[in-house]
């Protein structure tokens, strides 16, 4: 009997696995060509959300400048994988730097992690909301520098951003081309989808193992009660720094992927709104719960796009013409959705079982 149950579960997982693998073809068939790209971005957002989940969900440190690490990763690859540096240092790099993506990736991850430690070290003494605002300031500083470091030495090319970034290559095959495997044609967006899927799965797996590890349990102890945790012999400072560094590393990795995928980066992609968006994914989905965070990432990445595709036809059907600017209408609906979901499920859409229990017992304690 037990065996049967296991295989049923296994079958379910297998079916889900196949469904996810076939996802780009399903969206192609059902929704149209443009959707694979949107799903690709959703994967990037999931990676970011999982990374932020380590900082906010596990360690309980509110970080509002998370997108800065994403930016660090993206600019790392943009500088070392494009002709851009030829502008700044024509003698040194006559046609720019073209390092392989796979060399830049660990470097960017380390650099972003280092930035995380650098940001964390002086600020970790701060209480929650102060930490939030300092990280917010840090994110803005990074963005302002990216915007302005085009003079006197043109390092970031300012608001115009850096373009013509090399695509990701796997074993010499550029992912910017259409490939065919076993007779199945895979356009570039499909190839990137599988790359991102792999990375997202890796990030989810690492998150899962971290959560169950000694470190993860220590993080959660810090989140629940820092003083008690430190009394139990947990080195709270180092562990909080580690949380910052790990989260930042994941942010850096997804940033590098973003730069390779997009072929273009500009400061516009790293605004405070993006940090807020990623935070919304984590909180809306269910802090500290991997499935919840993935759900949140998927929803928030896809919802605005769905609204984009539905507000115009809807208005045409109702009034015969477009009377309200679709862009603002879609953001308006998005804002309303955020409020409504939080009002009805304040712990997130899919909170972790532990967290749900804690909340329930909190309420019970308050009633007494």
């Amino acid at each position, binding site marked *: 009997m037990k065996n049967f149950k296991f295989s049923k579960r296994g079958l379910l997982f297998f079916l889900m696995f196949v469904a996810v693998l076939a996802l780009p073809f399903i969206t192609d068939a059902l929704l149209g060509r443009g959707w694979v790209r949107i799903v690709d971005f959703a994967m990037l957002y999931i990676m970011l959300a999982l990374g932020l989940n380590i900082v*906010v969900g596990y360690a309980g440190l*509110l970080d509002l400048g998370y997108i800065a690490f994403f930016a660090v990763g993206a600019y790392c690859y943009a500088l070392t994988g494009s002709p851009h540096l030829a502008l700044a240092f024509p003698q040194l790099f006559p046609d720019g730097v073209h390092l392989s993506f796979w060399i830049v990736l660990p470097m960017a991850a380390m650099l972003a992690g280092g930035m995380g430690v650098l940001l964390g070290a*002086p*600020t970790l*003494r*701060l*209480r*929650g*909301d*102060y930490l*939030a*605002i*300092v990280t*917010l*300031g*840090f994110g*803005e*500083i990074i963005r*302002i*520098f990216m*915007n*302005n470091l085009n003079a*006197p030495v043109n390092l970031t090319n300012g608001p115009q951003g850096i373009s013509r970034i090399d695509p990701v290559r796997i074993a010499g095959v550029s992912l910017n081309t259409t490939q065919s495997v076993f007779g199945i044609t895979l356009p570039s967006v499909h190839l990137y989808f599988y790359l991102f899927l792999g990375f997202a799965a890796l990030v989810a797996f690492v998150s899962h193992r971290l959560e169950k590890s000694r470190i993860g349990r220590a993080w959660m102890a810090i989140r629940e*009660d*820092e*003083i008690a945790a430190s009394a139990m012999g947990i080195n709270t400072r180092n562990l909080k720094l580690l949380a910052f560094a790990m989260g930042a590393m994941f942010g850096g990795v997804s940033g590098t992927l973003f730069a390779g995928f997009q072929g273009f980066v500009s400061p516009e992609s790293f605004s*405070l709104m993006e940090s*807020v968006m990623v*935070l*919304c994914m984590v*909180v*809306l989905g269910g*802090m500290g719960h991997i499935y919840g965070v993935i759900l949140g990432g998927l929803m928030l990445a896809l919802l605005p796009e769905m609204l984009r595709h539905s507000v115009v036809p809807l208005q045409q059907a109702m009034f015969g013409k477009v009377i*309200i*600017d679709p862009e*603002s*209408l879609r*953001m*308006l609906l*998005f*804002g*309303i*959705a*955020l*409020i409504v979901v*939080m*009002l009805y499920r*304040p*712990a997130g859409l899919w909170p972790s079982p532990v967290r749900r229990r804690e*909340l329930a017992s909190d*309420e019970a304690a*308050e009633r007494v």
Partner: protein
Amino acid sequence: MEIFLQQIINGLVQGSVYALVALGYTMVYGILGLINFAHGEVVMTGAMLALSALTALIGWGVSPLLALPVSLMLAMAGCMALGYGIERIAYRPLRHAPRLAPLITAIGVSIVLQNLAMMIWGREYHAFPQLIINRPHLIFGAIINDIQIIIVVMAIGLMAGLMVVVHRTRLGRAMRAVAENQHAAQLMGVDVNRVISITFMIGSALAAVAGLMVSANYGLAHYYMGFLLGLKAFTAAVLGGIGNLRGAMLGGLLLGLIESLGAGYIGDITGGFMGSQYQDVFAFLVLIAVLVFRPSGLLGERLAERA
């Protein structure tokens, strides 16, 4: 020397606006322990409402000297209603929810307000009508004009008024009591919900005034103007010690001064390497420095870590 004085004047004017907005943040934080992220949008709404009322009234031939206070009153009333509504819809139901839940609803409210404003007033910049002759005055070579004088005087008046309300009236005592300990205040017969609502309304009224001031000073209003202003004002509130009214005022003025002096002199200091486009960096650098060396802000009390 003239440049220095000019930067001081600019900083004071900008700082008084920051201070008024920062008061809204700090009052709400003091009472609820919540960052009211939508406050910047309330400022924007106030500016837009005032501007629309002003344009309409002038169009009907009302004299500018009457139109200005009337439209300010209308904007304040509108923002008070808005502040009340925001608290009622987005924050009150979540008062006992996890700490981050109201933050998300606040972000939601701010997105909603911004886009509503875009639908109503469009994406374009709205020019502020020329109402009074804005005479410039020379003080030791630096220029201050009438509008700037009015802004500073009004801001000081409002802040003084707020201090009187908070420290001398029954309502103020109730507000301080709720900030101190909600449960105890309730047991002493304070209507906590009413006090919180009123706090939001006062903060929003101040925001409306600040909105009008900003648009009068720059001659412009825009649906996106609340975002950065709100962020800076929040920075000011943290700088002074969030939850502390005097701190918000001091933080606002200081931030205004630091920004304008920093932007004015950064070119000289770095030998032309960085220019005034780094103005916004100053606000955040100062913030980080203050928090690292004095985490409770300039005037904040050192709070015991919450168990």
